Structures are given as structure tokens and as C-alpha cells.
């Protein structure tokens, strides 16, 4: 029994990190209808910035959170404004190819500058015990941050003028223009928010996982799975998707061995794709 409470706790904490990793990707995909192949690299970029600040100047990751967020927002905004906006309404294959090409560039730049060495912010905050369950403090903080950030994003999407404009542009670009919405700007803001969330996830990840350019593909794959499981383009979807994936991987790892954990995640995703394409809590309209 003790082991199960531990497995569940592991799953939930991992799941929150997954949610954090995926929410920006989901937003960009849902709103811009662009599969952002750069997302994994954005996360790693955020992680590297955090690591260098910590390693070089001893700046605490918490301080870097807003800094990295702002930098990646700017990067995302600029990329969308100057590059992606030119083909934003083209078919899937075109936008995907474009972001794939951009990712090749960013990836190459990052391996050149940062090398592929795994780096880690050694905060090592220890762990707390709740009865039989051991909870690593950095993951707890990461979980809390992930929740706070996704909720903040949710609030922005639901309650603010910008949030409404983002949905409107997604649903009907030319009608949105008639509302006075500058669609290209909204696209750039959305992409910026996506990059911001990726960067912030990178900050959290840098203190929890070893960061290296090798894992950009893995992160991207996780983001895919989380989005599909939870439901595309919706913030609560990313949260639910992340948690479910974390739990499934954790339980499958325990029952069938770590070799099957990732397979279980993908199988879950395929099952959901086929039975409930809108995801567990997906909003209609993003198909």
C-alpha cells in the first residue's frame, strides 16, 4: 500500500511537470493551428539560460523565472511576427515544415554554444516525508509553479480581452478583424505566450532534470501526448492531460517495468485519439 501512495505521488508530481511542459505547445497548436516543432528547444533554451545565470553569477532560478519568461516571450513574438505569420494560414504540412526548419537552426546554435553536456542547477532542496510518502521539495515547488502558471494562463484566457481575442482569432480570422482585432499581433502574442510558458517550464526543469539539447525531441513528444490526452488548445486540458499521463506512466512503470512506461503513454494517446479526439476535457471547435 505504501508503495502505491508513493507511486501516485510520483505520478502526480511528474504529471504537473508534464502539464507545465505542454501548456504553451497546446495553446499555440490550438489557436494558431501550428504544430510548433520548436517547443522542445524553447524549453531547453529556458533551462540553459537558468543554468548559466546560476552557474555563472549564482542567480537563483526563482529570480530567473520572470527574466527567462520575458526573453522567450520576446523571442517567440519576434519569430511569429517576422517569420511564421507569413505562412500561418497555410496547411499543416507547410507550417510544420517551417517550424521544423527553424528548430534545426535553433538546435544547431544551441549545441554549438552550449554543447550537449547535461547540466543541472544543483539546488538539491532535499525531500519531505508524509508518512510513507517521500516528496522531493524541488518537484513540489515545480508542481506548485506549474499549477499556478497554468491557472494564471487560464485566467488570462477566460477573463481578459486578450484571451477573448485569442479565441476569436482562432475561430474566425476575418470576423475577428472586423472586431478591430489586429490578428497578426494576436498571433504573435499567442506564440510569445507559448514560448514564455516553454521558457518557464525550462526554468523549473533545470532544477529537476539534467538539461541537454538531446532531450528536445523527448519533450516535444511528451507535449504531443499531453495535448492529445487532455484536449487541444485548452489550458485545463493540458493540466488534465499532464496529470493523467504522469499517473499512467508511473503506474505502468511499476506494474510492467520501466520499459513499458513510455509505451503505455503512447498507447493511451492513440486510444484517446480514436475514441475521444477532443481529449478528456477538450473544447469542441479545435478539431
Amino acid at each position, binding site marked *: 500500500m505504501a508503495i502505491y501512495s508513493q507511486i501516485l505521488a510520483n505520478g502526480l508530481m511528474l504529471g504537473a511537470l508534464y502539464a507545465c511542459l505542454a501548456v504553451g505547445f497546446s495553446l499555440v*497548436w490550438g489557436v494558431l*493551428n501550428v*504544430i510548433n516543432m520548436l517547443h522542445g528547444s524553447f524549453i531547453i533554451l529556458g533551462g540553459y539560460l537558468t543554468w548559466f545565470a546560476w552557474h555563472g553569477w549564482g542567480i537563483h532560478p526563482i529570480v530567473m523565472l520572470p527574466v527567462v519568461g520575458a526573453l522567450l516571450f520576446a523571442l517567440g513574438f519576434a519569430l511569429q511576427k517576422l*517569420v511564421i505569420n*507569413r*505562412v500561418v494560414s*497555410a*496547411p*499543416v*504540412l*507547410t507550417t*510544420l*515544415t*517551417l517550424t*521544423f*526548419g*527553424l*528548430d*534545426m*537552426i535553433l*538546435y*544547431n*546554435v544551441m549545441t*554549438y554554444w552550449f554543447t550537449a553536456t547535461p547540466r543541472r542547477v544543483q539546488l538539491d532542496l532535499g525531500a519531505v516525508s508524509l508518512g510513507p510518502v517521500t516528496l522531493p521539495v524541488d518537484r513540489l515547488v515545480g508542481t506548485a509553479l506549474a499549477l499556478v502558471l497554468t491557472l494564471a494562463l487560464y485566467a488570462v484566457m477566460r477573463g481578459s480581452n486578450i484571451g477573448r481575442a485569442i479565441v476569436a482569432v482562432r475561430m474566425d480570422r476575418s470576423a475577428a478583424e472586423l472586431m478591430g482585432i489586429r490578428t497578426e499581433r494576436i498571433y504573435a502574442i499567442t506564440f510569445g505566450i507559448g514560448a514564455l510558458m516553454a521558457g518557464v517550464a525550462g526554468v523549473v526543469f533545470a532544477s529537476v532534470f539534467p538539461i541537454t539539447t538531446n532531450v528536445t*525531441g523527448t519533450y516535444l*513528444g511528451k507535449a*504531443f*501526448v499531453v495535448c*492529445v490526452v487532455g484536449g*487541444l488548445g485548452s489550458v485545463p486540458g493540458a493540466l488534465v492531460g499532464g496529470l493523467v499521463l504522469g499517473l499512467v506512466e508511473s503506474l505502468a512503470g511499476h506494474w510492467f517495468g520501466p*520499459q*513499458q512506461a*513510455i*509505451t503505455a503513454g*503512447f*498507447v493511451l*494517446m*492513440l486510444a484517446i*485519439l*480514436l475514441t475521444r*479526439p477532443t481529449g478528456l476535457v477538450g473544447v469542441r471547435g479545435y*478539431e
Partner: protein
Amino acid sequence: MRSGPLAYALLAVGILVLASTPLYADNYVVRTAAIVAMYGALATSWNFIGGFTGYPSFSTAAFFGLGCYVGAICQRAGVPMVLAWLIATLMVGAFAALLGAIILRLKGHYFAIGSIAVVEVCRLIVSSWSSLTGGGDGLNLPLLTWGPEQVMRFFLFVMLAILILSLIATALVDRSRLGFGLRCIHQNEDAAAMVGIDTTRYKVAAYTLSAVFCAAAGAAYASWTGYIDPTESFQILMTVKVPVMAMLGGAGTLAGPFLGAAAFVLLEEVFWANFLDWNRAILGVVIVLLVFFLPGGLLSLARKRSAGGPA
């Protein structure tokens, strides 16, 4: 979409150039020609589902990888090489038909994701089924004992044969009821069903066609290199690269995917040889520029020239 004499001429020239490389060039050029033919076959296969039908499939690496493994396992069990390739082609084709019946219910981005997931799941399953596949250790195949030139020529002609078969299939489909139906589905699937097209069957047929040539190429490739492992056989990169090649040449056309593959492979050659640290980034830049300035693919250039404007 109709392929004119220009396309056929380009194809004939391209294939002749590839086939004649052993006459005048060294073995590495012959190898590059074989690789061009192989990617040409992969891109031409992809064209059935991605170009004709408009379904952004990223399953290529799954079919290629399964082809590698089925072929390798058969060969290790003592099946003669060419027969092993045939078995691989048929089995993967059957697998694609079954899989297609399931995942072709998805559309757009969802289909894209589902088809990528297929690659990952295949890789994971192959990798954990060690008793059959050797898991992470991979599998060794009997190496051909001929000299390097003979081996290379042999595989050049094998890959060319697969390419030519895929092109013939494309030309036949293009003129048939199937091709017409697939194009209708591409344009408007609801309307296609309403005029009496059995969309599920047609899509499954396209998906299967997109698999068989990949499987054949994979099985032949495995025999060629003599060693396969899960990471090399199921490469996400290949699965993205092949559609990019098709787009580069012109998706949905007869000659486009092959030309795109040739152009892409040659570009890669140039960049590796000359830019050690930046080859990936430079290729990225090229892709970005292509998306911007040549969205219809290389063939659209030729078409503009010859037709003097958009049709």
C-alpha cells in the same frame, strides 16, 4: 495535377542519370545515387497518402523500420534475401491496411499526430520485444560477400527498381478511378462521400500504397547495411524529412517527390562536406527559404516557365 510530358521527361532523365552512375563515377557517387533512389521511393510512396489524398502522414519511418525488421528476421531465419523483401512488403502492407482502417478516422493535425505516434509505438515495441528483435542490441544480417562495387551496384539497381515500381503505381493510380477519388477526398471529404466514394476504403488503399514501397526499401536497406537497431530503423527525422522532400519537389505530382528527394539529398551532401559545425542549421535555413519562396515545390517553377502563368 495532371502530369504532362515534362514530368515524364524529367523522370526519365533523372532515372537514367542515377542508373548510369556506375559507368563514370566512383562508388560514393553510386551510393549517393542509391540513397537518392531510396528516398525518391519513400517520397513517391508518401505521395499517395500525403499528396493525392491530402492526409499529412508521418508514418513513413514506421513502415520503413518494420520493413527492415521483417526482412531481417526472415533472412536470419534462412529465407532467401529477395523472398524476405517480398514477405516484408506484403506483411507491412497488410499491417498498414489494418492500421489505416483505425487511424484514418482522424483528420488534419490529429491524423498527423496519430501517424507520428505509430512510429514511436513501433519503435518501443520492437525495442522491448528482445526475444524476436534483439531489443536495443539490434540485429546482424548476413553481409553480401561480393566486392564493394558489386554490392553497391546491386543495391543501386534494387533501389531504382523500387523507385520505378512506385512511380508506375503512381502513374496508374493517377489515371484511375482510385486517383480521381483520392483527389476528391483531398478537396472535400464530405462531398466525396456524398458523390458515392467509399472514402474509408479509398483512404486505406492510399495508406497501404504509401506503406508497401517503404517496407520494400526498408527490407533492402537492412540487407545492404547488414545491421539494424530500433533507433536507426524508426527515425522521427526520416518521418519528417520524407514529406519535406515531397513538398520540395511538389506534392501530389508524379515527378515532384522524386525530384524533391534528389534535391534534398544533394543539398545535404554539399552541407556536410563543407560545413562541419553548421550543416544542420544551414539545412534549416534552406527549408525555411523554400517554404517562403517555393511553396508549390520545384515543379511549380518549371510549370510557371512552360505555361507562362498559373493554370
